[in-house]
């Protein structure tokens, strides 16, 4: 109930009722989009948007740049980690 699921808006069903059809993990269902539209981003502009869906409501547009930033940081950590492991194992080789 509290865990949302990412989905992509594929069409607007009813602009007055703020209803859109969203593809959520392959299931297409009507979702309310009132919380993610405003003057700069009217319903028609929402098509193609990735959103987080909670109990039938799109509650947040997923910010692709922010997602990438987090992943980049994690990627750096992973590479850094590999480097450290490489240093460690080569030290071990020298000691033996």
């Amino acid at each position: 109930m509290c865990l949302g699921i990412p989905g992509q808006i594929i069409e607007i069903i009813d602009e007055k009722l703020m209803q859109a059809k969203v593809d959520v993990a392959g299931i297409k269902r009507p979702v309310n989009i009132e919380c993610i539209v405003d003057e700069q981003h009217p319903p028609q502009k929402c098509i193609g948007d990735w959103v987080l869906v909670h109990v039938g409501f799109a509650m947040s547009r997923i910010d692709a740049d922010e997602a990438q930033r987090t992943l980049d940081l994690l990627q750096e950590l992973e590479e850094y980690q590999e480097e450290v492991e490489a240093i460690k194992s080569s030290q071990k080789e020298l000691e033996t």
Partner: protein
Amino acid sequence: MKYVDEFRDPAKAKALISQINGLKEKLGIKDGAMPIQLMEFCGGHTHTIFRYGIEPMLPDWVEMIHGPGCPVCVLPMGRVDNCVELAERPEVIFTTFGDAMRVPGSKKSLLQAKADGADVRMTYSPMDALELAKRNPMREVIFFGLGFETTMPSTALTVIQAKNQGIKNFSLFCNHITTVPTIKAVLDSPDMRIDGFLAPGHVSMVVGERPFDFIADVYHKPIVITGFEPLDILQSIWMVLSQLAEKRCTVENQYARIVPPNGNPAALNAMAKVFELREFFEWRGLGSIDHSGVKMREEYQDFDAEVKFAVPLLKIADPKSCQCGEVVKGVLRPWECKIFGGACTPETPMGALMVSSEGACAAYYSFGDIPQLLAKREQQIKINIKDKSA
């Protein structure tokens, strides 16, 4: 799945764990000292932590405390009894999120009421309940609204639509609860010794970052708004520990892909329109907490099941043997409760934390090594007795 799988990569998890381990010295941790306690407030986080086995990955000087943020778990018994009574009215179709079906009331759960013939239906969305009302004009459709600020906007918007469309046979039984007063209650409890917090990501998506400032400013604890994938949790643990190591405390946002700093204005508007704070709300295991729940405003009375059906406020104490309150505050670990795994199991839950998969006790029960945990409890009891007689 997009925006999900990327946050489950084991190699990156390993890198994060190594970063966490690297903080030990900077934090001045001595071997054998009391571990640093971090609380994940939200039941969704508890679920991820158990599902992906995050606890065993962490060094032994970090301990996760599983907080009270599972709305199903903290629902008081009296409220469940109210639901059952409403559901048993012949004219009523009682609709609810599936999670709430098995919560024990003092006589029965909604699931048992359904088995006994009440018209109880699980709906994924409150909008589906409204649709049901439109299709069944001769029946009264009640939606059981529960949850923190994550689900509050959805029920508010549904009620607003019901009013706009003039649907008279739809009402909300409002049991929504608020996050901030609850965290405050945890922080104020005298036996609490938590060093830092993971803040609920989806509550924050609605309310934004600022409502958590007091945790850093007044209580001087670091807090990080956290997403729900395993890497989100590990990264946030690392961020909280880094703050502790650097002797800082602020609100940080690990979940910026979903949580805008100011939250969601449209959602906040809808909530403010429909709901107002209650003086207090009863919690299972925590007792009564001031301003920790909301009720519907007078303008929406026609859609308020509490008013429409004159629902009495029942106060029913938790069973004496339950120790959910201590577990929720981090004073006891779930398996240290006297009836864990004995009288209280997911099949026959005595306490609320055993009900939902997001409850700490149910999580330990399904993912933990039960015989080992119970042996550990026996051991502790023995030590306590020895201590007392010495």
